[in-house]
């Protein structure tokens, strides 16, 4: 990958989605969504299929019309501006290179429409292909390139017209894991270099957390929580966010005095004003540690290993505590001795936990 790029950094613009609504045949895809993206910021919209994230992106791109609300780019209301006049660059989930054009011609296409002179066009297309590390492939057609290369050309093509906003609609989802990870870093590098305001839509939490300045977790047409990746992960605002982002153990507990007591361990709460009473505590697997239980004394956190799954640097251990199964994520070096059937004792780190009250809970703790 080339390191010496000559892309001119440009100041991004602010993007505002104001109370956007979109319905399809009675189904509400977007339910009053509002979002402000700061100049040069990369915001990822994360959520399950059908949550409205792609609809939000398409409304911003002008590829669909909103039933209500406004789209504002650089303080200009573009709600009724057609897609080809919005000055937006977009990379699609499906491979979108024009099959009858080479990589170079693809990148030049948008500039041709913007009446850029041929010499300037070729120069800038070359720079853009260089930016994504594909200048050696400029004469190849889409069918002669890999999926990752095609998406990089699509990125170069989107940036070549110097758009005000860059929209990325799950551009990595068709790629294999290794290429996806590498291209994800590429996109972030290019975005930072160019300094363009970017909206990235994905259902892959790892992707969203790794690439974005802020992540918006969407559910049922609304943003449930918007914040930096660390906040989204460690201080989820709602049970949906907690359970969608990362794995979560649901363990019965009792809220009392701003803390929750879970199987004999008192844990702080994300929301200190949670009312007292029985509750389900949402505990991250990495907050659970496991140690072999030598004395075999029964206790609320003593159980039997059901399985250990090797994930590379870490391993996931499933422990049966009798009335509940708990997941723990450990460094693989600590998990090698924990084979199925091993008696273990769990402990929970005092990370703030969120409370879910959406199901009947027992007062036993």
């Amino acid at each position, binding site marked *: 990958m080339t390191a010496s790029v000559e892309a001119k950094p440009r100041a991004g613009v602010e993007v505002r989605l104001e109370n956007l609504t979109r319905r399809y045949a009675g189904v509400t895809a977007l339910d009053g969504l509002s979002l402000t993206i700061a100049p040069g910021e990369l915001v990822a919209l994360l959520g399950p299929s059908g949550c409205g994230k792609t609809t939000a992106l398409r409304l911003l*791109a002008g590829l669909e019309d909103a039933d209500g609300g406004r789209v504002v780019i650089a303080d200009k209301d573009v709600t009724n501006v057609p897609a080809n006049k919005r000055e937006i*660059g977009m990379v*699609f989930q*499906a491979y*979108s290179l024009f099959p009858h054009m080479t990589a170079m011609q693809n990148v030049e*296409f948008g500039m041709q429409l*913007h009446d850029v002179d041929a010499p300037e066009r070729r120069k800038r297309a070359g720079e853009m292909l260089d930016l994504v590390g594909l200048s050696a492939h400029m004469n190849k057609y889409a069918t002669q390139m890999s999926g990752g290369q095609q998406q990089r050309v699509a990125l170069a093509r*989107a940036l070549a017209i110097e758009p005000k906003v860059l929209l990325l609609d799950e551009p990595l989802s068709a790629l294999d894991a290794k290429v996806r990870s590498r291209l994800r870093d590429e996109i972030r590098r290019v975005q930072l270099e160019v300094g363009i305001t970017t909206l990235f839509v994905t259902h892959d939490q790892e992707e969203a957390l790794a690439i974005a300045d802020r992540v918006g977790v969407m559910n049922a047409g609304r943003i449930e929580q918007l914040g930096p990746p660390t906040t989204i992960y460690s201080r989820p605002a709602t049970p949906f966010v907690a359970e969608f982002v990362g794995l979560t153990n649901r363990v019965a507990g009792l809220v009392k005095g701003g803390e929750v007591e879970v199987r004999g361990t008192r844990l702080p709460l994300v929301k200190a004003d949670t009312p007292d009473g029985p509750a389900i505590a949402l505990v991250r697997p990495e907050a659970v540690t496991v140690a072999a239980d030598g004395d075999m004394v029964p206790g609320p956190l003593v159980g039997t290993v059901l399985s250990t799954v090797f994930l590379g640097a870490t391993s996931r251990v499933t422990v049966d505590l009798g009335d509940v199964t708990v997941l723990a994520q450990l460094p693989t070096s600590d998990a090698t001795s924990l084979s199925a059937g091993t008696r273990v004792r769990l402990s929970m780190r005092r990370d703030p936990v969120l409370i879910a009250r959406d199901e009947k809970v027992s007062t036993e703790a």
Partner: protein
Amino acid sequence: MRRSRRAKLQVFRAVTFVLLGAFFLLPIWFMFEFSTRGVGENSPRTLDAWKAIGTYPDLVAGIVASLQLAVITSVGILVVLVPTMVWVRLRLPRLRRVIESISLLPLTIPAIVLVVGFSPMYQWMGNNFSDSILTLSLAYAVLVLPYAYRALDAGLAAIDVKTLSEAARSLGAGWPTVMWRVIVPNISSALLNAGLLSVALVLGEYTIANNLLYPNLQVEIVSLARTNAAVSIAVAVASLLFAFLLLVALSFVGGQRGGRRRNRERLVQTFARDFSGGTR
């Protein structure tokens, strides 16, 4: 085992090829043979009938009219059908089945029945607008609709019309640019196939022209057969060869980057249908 199976398959292919070739070429050969017979018994072969083709003004006019009709019909049907089909795919996908059914409808209606329907329309057009033979292109557009629709539908199904057009739109392209610079180049094989089918069908059409009293090529061939069968057969062979050569030429022109083999296959099907089906 595998080798013997492969050998059997090759023999089967060769036999099929020879039989089909004979099926198509033998009638043409015998037509050619008839058109080159001398006048009396034991007379030597002669090309008099072929040389006489240009001496029949009505026949020449019929040839010119059919060629004009072929061009107008194929261009017209593409101009109407391509934007409609693309628009339906992008914006009205629920209407696709309806459009398909309407487009395929002419296949189920005999040409003679179509004539009954067209007749009052052509009478009105003759009185109020024009009675030029070129107005036949309207009726022919209906005739070629199913074939053109099928060819274009296959072409559009082979590309991601929605993503390509949205990508072009996001880069600043208006709809005419999307159509002309993105969609059309990517369905060039389908356009060519639709055009070829239209040309072949128009050049072979007889029923509608004859019943609406328009003297196209086929009508003139039949008319000439009553007075000079040899010249009539010579023209028929020439028109078949012309259609075949035209299809071959267009196939090579449009057969860039992978589409060539598909075009040849389509070409053979077109020629077979046109020849074996005779005139409609």
